[in-house]
C-alpha cells in the first residue's frame, strides 16, 4: 500500500491483530470470581517493561488508588499511553514509572495549571516519546478493539504532530483523498475505575465513557477498580447498562473513593485544595519528596491516604459537592 508520508515516531506496541488474537485465544472466558485486593492485582498484572494505559479523563473517574499502588510497588521502564492524562500522569512521573510515552495530553492539569515534576521528567531526556492527539489515541484503541491493524482519521495532517507520530498518510482507494492510518494500540495492561461491577468483571459506568469501552477491549489485561460491587443478578436485570463484559477483565478490586482526589461523577467531586497543595509542593524537590513519602510511600493503602487528607468527613463533604451538582440526577 502506497504511503504518502509517515511520522518518525516509534511504535511501542505491535499493531498485528493476529498476535493479539493468539493471546486472546488463550484468555479465560470462564465466569469466575476475580475479586482480589488492589495490591494483589497490581502484583499479578502490572509488570516492569510492559505497556500501561489508565482509564478515565485526567482527574475524572481515574483509578488514582491504583496509580499510588504502582508507585509503592516500584514499577519501572513501562510504556505509557499519555492519553487525556493529568493527575494520573503527575503521579506516575513522580515514580518515574515509564520511560516510553505516547503523548496526547500530558503534564497539564487543565485549568489547574502544570506539574513541575512531570515537566522536569519529560525534559530530562529519560523518556522516549511519540506524539499523537487525544482522538488519534482513541482511534488507535478503536482499531485494536475492532481486531484490525489501523483505523482512518482526518486529523494531524500538515503538522509536526504527524511528523513525530507513528501515523502514516495513505490515499483512499475509493476517493483518492488523504487519510491518516492510525496503528492499532494493544496495551499490555489497562486499569479502569467504574461505578459498579460484579465479581466476574461485568461493569457499569455512569456518565461519559471517554475511551474506556475501547480501552478495555483493546487491552490484553484489564484491572477494574469499582466504587461498589453489585450482584450478578443485578447485571443480568439490565444487560443494556453493561459497558464492559467480564471476559475482558482479569481482576476486580472494590475500591470506594478509588478516584479520590479526582471527581467520580454521581459519587463525589474532586478535592481541589489537595490537588493545589500537590502542585504547590512540587516547587521544592525536598518538600515534594516528603510529600510523596507521606501521601504515597508511607501509606499502606488508599485509605491511609484518605485518612491523612480528611478521612470520612472530607469524603462526605465531597459527596455533598457532587450531590449539589446532581441533585435531580442523584435522586432520579
Amino acid at each position, binding site marked *: 500500500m502506497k504511503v504518502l508520508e509517515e511520522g518518525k515516531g516509534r511504535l511501542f506496541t505491535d499493531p498485528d491483530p493476529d498476535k493479539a488474537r493468539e493471546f486472546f485465544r488463550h484468555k479465560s472466558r470462564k465466569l469466575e470470581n476475580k475479586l482480589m485486593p488492589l495490591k494483589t492485582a497490581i502484583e499479578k498484572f502490572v509488570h516492569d517493561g510492559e505497556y500501561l494505559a489508565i482509564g478515565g479523563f485526567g482527574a*475524572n473517574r481515574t483509578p488514582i488508588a491504583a496509580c499510588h499502588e504502582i508507585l509503592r510497588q516500584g514499577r519501572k521502564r513501562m510504556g505509557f499511553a499519555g492519553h487525556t492524562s493529568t493527575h494520573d500522569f503527575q503521579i506516575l512521573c513522580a515514580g518515574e514509572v515509564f520511560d516510553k510515552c505516547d503523548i496526547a495530553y500530558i503534564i497539564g492539569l*487543565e485549568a489547574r495549571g502544570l506539574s513541575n515534576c512531570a515537566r522536569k521528567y519529560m525534559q530530562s531526556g529519560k523518556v522516549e516519546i511519540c506524539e499523537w492527539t487525544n482522538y488519534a489515541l482513541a482511534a488507535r484503541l478503536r482499531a485494536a478493539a475492532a481486531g484490525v491493524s489501523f483505523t482512518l482519521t482526518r486529523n494531524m*495532517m500538515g503538522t509536526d504532530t504527524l511528523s513525530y507520530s507513528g501515523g502514516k*498518510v495513505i490515499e483512499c482507494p475509493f476517493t483518492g483523498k488523504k487519510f*491518516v492510518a492510525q496503528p492499532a494500540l494493544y496495551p499490555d495492561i489497562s486499569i479502569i475505575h467504574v461505578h459498579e461491577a460484579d465479581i466476574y468483571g461485568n461493569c457499569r459506568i455512569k456518565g461519559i465513557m471517554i475511551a474506556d469501552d475501547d480501552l478495555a477491549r483493546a487491552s490484553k489485561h484489564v484491572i477494574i477498580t469499582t466504587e461498589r460491587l453489585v450482584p450478578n443478578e443485578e447485571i443480568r436485570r439490565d444487560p443494556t447498562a453493561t459497558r464492559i463484559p467480564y471476559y475482558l477483565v482479569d481482576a476486580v478490586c472494590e475500591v470506594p473513593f478509588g478516584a479520590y482526589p479526582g471527581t467520580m461523577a454521581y459519587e463525589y467531586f474532586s478535592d481541589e485544595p489537595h490537588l493545589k497543595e500537590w502542585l504547590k509542593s512540587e516547587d521544592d524537590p525536598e518538600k515534594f519528596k516528603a510529600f510523596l513519602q507521606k501521601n504515597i510511600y508511607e501509606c499502606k493503602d488508599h485509605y491511609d491516604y484518605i485518612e491523612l487528607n480528611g478521612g470520612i468527613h472530607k469524603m462526605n463533604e465531597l459527596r455533598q459537592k457532587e450531590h449539589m451538582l446532581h441533585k435531580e440526577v442523584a435522586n432520579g
Partner: protein
Amino acid sequence: MADYNTMELMICVASRELDDGATAGVGTGAPCAAAMLAQKVGAPNLIIMFEAGGISPLLPEMPISVGDSRTFYKALMATSMGEIMETCCRGFVDYTFLGGAQMDMYGNLNSTKIGGEHQKPKVRLPGSGGANDFASFCWRMMVMTPQDSRRFVEKVDFVTTPGWIKGGNSRYEAGLPLGTGPYKIITNMAVMDFEPESKRMRIISINPGYSLKDVQDNCGFELLQAAKITDTKPPTDQELRILREEVDPYRYVIGR
C-alpha cells in the same frame, strides 16, 4: 462607558462570534465562558460539546475540567470522546476555540515544546490534547489570546495544531477536510481574520484604547490590514453583568 479588564473584553467579543443554533466544541476557561455568555445573551440555542463526552449540558457553573461532572450535568447525552470527535469529523460542529504558547501568521499553533531536541526539549508543553482534532474537524477555529511578540511569532517551534499551514491551498492539499480552517483571532488589542487568498492573518478591528501600531508592535510577523478596519465594539453593560454575575461569579476566569 463600562469598565472592564482584558479577559472580560476578549470573552465578550468572542461570544458575539457564536451564532444561535450553532454547535461549538469548547474547553475550560475563557472559551467556555464565551460560550456560556453567548447562550445567555444572543445565542440561547448554541449547543456546547466537551471533548470528554458531554453534549449540551445545562452548565451550572464553569467546569474545571472538560470531563468533570458539570460538563454533562443535565446534558442531552453523555457519550465517549470518540463520538464527540467523530461528530466533529462528520461536519456537525461549527466552532471551536483554541489556544497555544505560539502562533504564526497562518494560525498554526504550538502547544508541544519550545527549544531543545524533540526527545529532550528545553520546555515541554502538554501537547495537542484534542486541539489538533478540533482544529482539523470543526468548520471554524478561533483563538483567544493575549497579544505579544513572544506568542505571535514568525515561526513556531512545533506545529501542534493546524491553521492554514503554509497558506494558500496548502491546508486542503495536506488532506484536511474541505472548508475548515482558522476563522478569527481575538486578542486584548484587536480582532484578526485571514486574507482569503494568502490565508495570512489580517487585522479587521482594533479594541478600545489600542492603536494599529500597538497591534503590529506586539506581533512577531507582519499583519495584513483589512480595507476597512473598524473599532471593536466594547462589552455592553448587559454582557458584563451576565458575565460577572451568572457566568463567572467566582471570577475563576475573569479574575486572572
